[in-house]
């Protein structure tokens, strides 16, 4: 189906090199065998050509399974003989292709395969298994595997084969035909000292007289000869062995190599093998990240840090080990994290733990990924990680202030705020003038977090911004900072002539901010605002009184409380109510 094929590929030629049949074939078994072979080869071609997730493949395979089952139910077995260029059934050639690059027969033959047998009962996984082997036959690393070794490993139940391995012999091996030939190759040497000691106690280095022990005559048979319980497995032992087997045949057991690699990092003094161990550890790390095993990836990095701290290492060793940490933050690895986060719900706390172990080189790739992440929680985790990693690397963030994506700029400002360094102020100031209000708000938050005099100065400026949301946020951030430098401008605003005209939310925000500073310095001003008579509409003065009373309650000092207690008995009902409410909310 043309629509299933990727654009850079042409439609595959799935035709099968079937020899032409002279005259009509009447033997039904042969006809069916021919059809089955043709389907089998077609399916292998299709699997080689189409990407593995292509739905066409399943259809092809299912059809092949049906054909196999039909044939095997009728004839019990289907045996293909493999020739150098041809496949045949009961002496009749069913397929022939002399092109060694494309011939399926040749690819089987060159690996020593001479016959493939399919038996009744053939299962789906077996058909898929043999397709998987044959589709990749061209890519097999011939130094490590071939079709025969791969078929053997699949341990098929209903597929058998005949294979030869004579072609693998480089030098002929003498297999002794008789005792004389055998004796010729016998080598009699005394046992080396190290073998003797290895058999004895490890600590002694002296060896023991094992020979003496073995030749010592014993009149009575050894206890275990008569007491069989000594070598009968208990049910716990059977279960223990079963569990051991289960865990060691699990594909993830490959990660077990990590323990040995870390032993090498502690023991080895030669550069080359040291580097080999480091390289494999990086591969292990890659595998963890690809699988989304972030907790294991961070455990690995933690062990790297522990190794660096614990052992007395030479400079080249330190450099070598540090390469793992550097590599852990390289772009390819960060991209792997992104891929996992895209496709599945990862444990974000594990991702966070990993990020916290990275170094400066990871900042750029992390920011790049941050701009692409869709999950807001994941973005938050990345920002927190960046804030930790980037403590001394502000300069790596600043280029991104110019990024055209407002959300990325906002995230960068968030990170800079969390880092809290004065050097970021010019960039935050820039962001403060950003066209997007969300970036400007983040900039105010960041200024609040930095909190140094310059930042406070910028916040104070923001108190007069045209946007009410910015003014409120600036006030709150000044309040949170709790500094006198912030208090004075806040008090100036609340005492200003037209302050009462502002939106209730803004009034509330400013008084909250004054309260948050928590200084007695604000108490006389607040007292005055609380008790001031109304020249305006009643509603407006109520908001001012409520705000002032709440601010006093938030300050919470004895002086502030005393004013509230006293004003609770005020003749003015609105003063009384404001103070009572403020005290109540504070005590709750």
């Amino acid at each position, binding site marked *: 189906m043309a629509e299933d094929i990727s654009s850079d590929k042409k439609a595959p030629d799935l035709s099968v090199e079937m020899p032409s049949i002279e005259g009509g074939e009447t033997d039904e078994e042969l006809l069916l065998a021919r059809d089955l072979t043709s389907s089998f080869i077609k399916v292998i071609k299709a699997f080689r050509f189409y990407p593995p997730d292509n739905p066409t493949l399943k259809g092809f395979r299912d059809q092949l399974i049906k054909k196999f089952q039909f044939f095997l139910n009728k004839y019990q077995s289907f045996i293909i003989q493999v020739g150098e260029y041809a496949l045949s059934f009961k002496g009749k050639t069913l397929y022939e292709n002399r092109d060694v690059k494309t011939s399926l027969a040749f690819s089987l033959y060159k690996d020593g395969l001479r016959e493939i047998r399919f038996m009744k009962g053939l299962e789906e996984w077996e058909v*898929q298994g043999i397709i998987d082997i044959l589709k990749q036959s061209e890519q097999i690393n011939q130094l490590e595997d071939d079709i025969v070794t791969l078929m*053997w490993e699949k341990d098929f139940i209903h597929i058998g084969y005949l294979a030869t391995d004579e072609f693998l012999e480089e030098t002929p091996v003498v297999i002794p035909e008789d005792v004389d030939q055998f004796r010729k190759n016998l080598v009699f040497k*005394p046992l080396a000292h190290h073998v003797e000691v290895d058999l004895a106690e490890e600590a002694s280095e002296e060896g023991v007289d094992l020979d003496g022990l073995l030749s010592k005559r*014993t009149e009575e048979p050894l206890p275990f000869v008569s007491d069989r319980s000594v070598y009968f497995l208990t049910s716990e032992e059977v279960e223990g062995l079963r569990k051991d*087997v289960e865990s060691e045949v699990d594909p993830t057991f*490959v990660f*077990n190599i990590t323990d040995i690699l870390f032993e090498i990092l502690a023991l080895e003094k030669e550069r080359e093998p040291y580097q080999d161990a480091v390289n494999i550890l990086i591969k292990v790390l890659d595998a963890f990240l690809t699988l989304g095993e972030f907790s294991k990836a961070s455990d690995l990095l933690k062990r790297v840090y522990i190794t660096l701290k614990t052992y007395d290492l030479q400079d080249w060793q330190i450099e070598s080990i540090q390469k793992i940490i550097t590599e852990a933050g390289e772009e390819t690895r960060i991209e792997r994290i992104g891929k996992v986060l895209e496709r599945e719900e990862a444990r974000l706390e594990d991702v966070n733990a990993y990020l916290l172990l990275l170094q400066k080189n990871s900042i750029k790739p992390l920011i790049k990924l941050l701009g692409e992440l869709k999950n807001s929680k994941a973005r938050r985790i990345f920002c927190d990680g960046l804030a930790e990693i980037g403590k001394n690397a502000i300069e790596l963030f600043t280029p991104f202030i110019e990024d055209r994506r407002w959300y990325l700029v906002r995230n960068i400002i968030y990170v800079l705020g969390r880092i809290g360094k004065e050097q970021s102020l010019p960039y935050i100031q820039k962001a403060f003038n950003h066209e997007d209000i969300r970036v400007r708000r983040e900039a105010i938050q960041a200024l609040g977090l930095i909190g140094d005099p310059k930042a406070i100065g910028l916040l104070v400026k923001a108190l007069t911004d045209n946007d009410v949301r910015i003014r409120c946020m600036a006030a709150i951030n000044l309040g949170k900072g709790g500094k006198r430098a912030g208090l004075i401008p806040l008090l100036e605003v609340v005492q200003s002539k037209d302050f009462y005209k502002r939106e209730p939310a803004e009034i509330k925000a400013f008084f909250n901010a004054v309260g948050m500073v928590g200084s007695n310095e604000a108490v006389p001003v607040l007292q005055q605002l609380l008790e001031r008579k109304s020249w305006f509409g009643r509603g407006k003065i109520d908001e001012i009184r409520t705000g002032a009373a709440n601010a006093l309650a938030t300050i919470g000092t004895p002086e502030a409380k005393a004013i509230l207690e006293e004003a609770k008995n005020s003749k003015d009902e609105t003063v009384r109510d404001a103070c009572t409410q403020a005290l109540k909310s504070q005590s709750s």
Partner: protein
Amino acid sequence: MPEEKPNLDHEHLPTTLGTEFIIKFYRLLKGTMIYDRKNAIIDRLTQECLEVIHRIIQSEGNLFLKIVRDNFFFNNIRIIVKADKYAIFKAFWQEMRRRWIGEVEFSEEVSGEHLKDFIYLLSKLEENNESNYLYVKKQLEYRHIESVQVGRLEFFKDEDIYIDSEDQKKYSKEVYFKTIGLVKEVVESINQQKALNIRKAKRLMQNAVNAIMQDDSTLLGLANIKNYDEYTFNHSVNVAILAIALGQRIGIPKKHLSHLGMAGLFHDMGKTRIPKEILNKTGKLSSEEWSMMRSHPLVGTEIIMRMKEWGELSTRMIDGAFEHHLRYDLAGYPRLTRKRKLTLFGRIITIADFYDALVRPRVYNRFPYVSEKILGIMLERSGKDFDPAIVKVFINMIGIFPLGTLVLLNTNEMGIVIQIQEDPELIDRPKVCLIYYSDGEYRKGKVVDLREMDEGTGDFKRGIVKTLDPNEYNMNVAEFLI
């Protein structure tokens, strides 16, 4: 699309029921080889087997046992064979294979007499006759036993399965000596820093697994060869064979058995970097020499790391190389910086390595001396140096009179243990090749099965009195096993 065979739950009912049936059925079958059908023991074994059959019929409606290659299917579900049941399954499989019977079905409850008819029919079948099942079918029909059915064993005669013990022996011998040749090549490649042909090693180990799965006694017997060519070559092959055979009994799947064999084969590769003067030195080693000697697990690990991309196989090979001198209690070397449980592959190779080295002659011009005392030493160190469960499996495999042991029988005959009985009850009654002295040398006599009973007295015909040191007779036992 399923890529792997489905995992089976080890506790599932078909495995439990199938195992129960096979044990009882096998015991009954073995009984028929020793006792006649009127014997009280046969009555008891029949009753025990009937009890299981009926229970299965009542709960499952049918009992269908099928053998496909070395897999057992109970009512079409594959049975997982546990470590302690391995021997009995293997023995049963061998009995059925000899008779070419691959299916047994009970569609309803049967009487004791009918079961006896059936089991004696099976027992008396001639060996290696593909048509046996037809004969049994006809006989069952003739006797109106309709509820029992049998089927032919499904495998191809000329495939990697050998019915004939001579073929099996020839095949095992080829595997053994070719593997010695391969180790030699590997060592040369390492020394010359040439690329290694892992594929060839894999094929040989896969062939070794095939041979061991058919009948491990031939290759285990060959593992008694100790002085053939260089020590490391011979020793590495023996360790691989012992490890595969041990792994098989523990229940390690076939694919991983070949990995285990590879791990055994390459476990000592670190020694290729040790100067021969140190490696073969018989005198006391200096502390520098010791430290070099003790670096070989680490060096071996590094050689494997370099020659093979990191993956499933290389991880296991590395485990074998790195851990084979580490003891169960983590003593030994290299000293670990962090405590952890040793891998199963590492623990297996440690035992195989120790046993093969221990059996090796320690004095110039002496022959290997296999005896039950070696197992005594291993048992003594079990829990400290070795995993106790694996030591037990090892003894069950190698026998309490290990393969290759020279024994004196109560008939005053001398023989070499050549095959262990798979039934653990009969572990002290192996098959023995009698040895006689003629024309100035020892020669092979007939093979006797120490299970054989004297019908007149009801006693065993022969029994082992004690083990002998072949050096006292100037005899290299391995010569009788090749």
